[in-house]
């Protein structure tokens, strides 16, 4: 089994988001970039499979992004991926999510991968499109928002649980397949300093637009949305603090929720 894990680099979740004066993007200087938390679960799952199953040949980590994205790729390598692929080209920056899926499909096609793992969502644009879109572009089945993954003994199929409203769907799939990870699947181990050093020696292949045959056609078939104006979230009106003893305050809150907010 050959596993590919997709890694995305995103602003740390504690980042204060400021909009640029021209509203075309957010301020990016000084923003701390980290591995997308949902992709962390996917990386750990890939490495766990590699450690537990003798039939797993390799785990390759793939990232699309500028030179600075290499740091996120290195985290995946330090945690246990064998090698990396860095899709790095100015031509990739204008792609929307569906086009990104088309790009990755074009790169991955014919690579002999059996399982592609990634987070269910990226915490910057929060679109959640990549996993299912990539599966469709490859014409593979997928399971989204997976919280549990169990392989059959022969390593050719698995049973996954995925989170839905108040319940979990239990689905069975044969490889090849795309699996997107949700919180609960596993937590990524801490990449130790020695492993981060060793990760620098692991092979990383840089892929440019010119290296991807049929890219323009594949990308031109789908998507084409553009983010054009950013705004801060609407300001919430100042809140009311309700004073008094707990009993009185509770009564007043219920009154306000009924009469003023009409929420109950």
């Amino acid at each position, binding site marked *: 089994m050959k596993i590919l894990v997709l890694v995305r680099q995103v602003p740390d979740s*504690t980042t204060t988001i400021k909009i640029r004066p021209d509203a075309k993007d957010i301020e990016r200087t000084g923003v701390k970039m980290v591995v997308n938390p949902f992709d962390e679960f996917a990386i750990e799952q890939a490495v766990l499979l590699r450690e537990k199953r003798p039939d797993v040949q390799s785990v390759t980590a793939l990232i699309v992004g500028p030179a600075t994205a290499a740091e996120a790729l290195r985290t995946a390598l330090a945690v246990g991926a064998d090698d990396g692929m860095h899709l790095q080209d100015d031509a990739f920056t204008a792609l929307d999510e569906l086009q990104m899926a088309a790009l990755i499909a074009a790169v991955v096609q014919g690579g002999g991968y059996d399982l592609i793992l990634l987070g269910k969502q990226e915490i910057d644009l929060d679109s959640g499109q990549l996993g299912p879109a990539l599966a469709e572009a490859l014409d593979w089945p997928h399971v*989204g928002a997976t*919280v549990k993954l169990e392989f059959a003994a022969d390593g050719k199929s698995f049973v996954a649980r995925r989170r839905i409203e108040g319940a979990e769907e239990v689905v069975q799939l044969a490889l090849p397949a795309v699996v997107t990870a949700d919180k609960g699947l596993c937590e990524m181990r801490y990449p130790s300093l020695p492993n981060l050093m060793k990760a620098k020696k692991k092979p990383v292949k840089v892929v440019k637009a010119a290296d991807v045959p049929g890219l323009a056609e594949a990308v031109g078939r789908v*998507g084409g949305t553009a983010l054009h*104006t950013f705004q801060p979230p609407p300001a919430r009106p100042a*809140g009311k603090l309700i004073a008094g003893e*707990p009993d009185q305050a*509770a009564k007043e809150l219920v009154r306000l929720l009924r009469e003023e907010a009409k929420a109950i």
Partner: protein
Amino acid sequence: MTNDILVFAEQRNDVVHPAALQLVMPAKALAATTGGKVVACLIGDKLDNAMAAVEKTGVDRIIAVSAPQLGLYSAVRYRTALATAIANVEPRIVLLAATFMGRDLAPRVAVKTQAALATDVVELTISGDGALDVRRPVYNGKAFCHVSFPEDRLAIASVRPNTFSAPAGGSGAARAALAYTPGPGDDRINVQEIARSAGAVKDVTEADIIVSGGRALKSEDNFKILYELAQELDAAVGASRAACDAGYQPHSRQVGLTGKTVTPRLYIACGISGAIQHLAGMRGSKVIVAINTDKEAPIFKLADYGIVADVFKVVPALTAEVQRLKG
């Protein structure tokens, strides 16, 4: 391409998802601009009740794709079925609800039909050049962004639940049935069962009201006071990650960045500090209440109503007051 707007009316067990009925309002507004009709598409096995519920929202036409294999959701079968409906209607815009199903299905359908897609949108308009333009939250709700669509391609958008309300009082929609013809890969996902995670207790993504507890609750046992209030309000119980990690509540109840994103009518945060990652999951709530002993807790910055006091005193008092008013 027609000027019609196609709405995917997601259902399970012949019950339409409330968020799917909420799509009809924006669909009608878009249809008024494009000069088209609103067509609803249902996919499943038994669909009678679901179709009746959709008809009440006042859509112009209902298309049902029904087959025994469509009884449970499968990403690949539903993709084929929805693509069939799209080929039949040739709409300009397709709307889905950004539910677990909608999030899973929309990207597949978009690639299959060579469309463009935006997910989790909260505003939809037709721009001067006739293309769809939407607004959606990004960076876990810390910003919003307008997204433009290309003019020459089918536009698909999933709409954030509870952004619009469901219209009522409609009747007399034309009905049609479309056959489901399995595609070559359609049997590759075998949905075995739907396992309810926490008995009959409402999930945070299904509730209009959420009573949520944090580390301050100190034990699973103490969450009982939240369940009692939730019972009176017909609410679901949520929790912070600190409370879930400590084992007070299962992770399926976690609200936030790595938990569930919720947009209820009312969110009551009990003993939750309001860390940025928690806010990421609930800042879209219509009314927010915070109960916390620390008046500096960041949750108060977001709250519409706040009480600076002990949850163990305030929450039972709230339960008693709601009970008293119900008589």
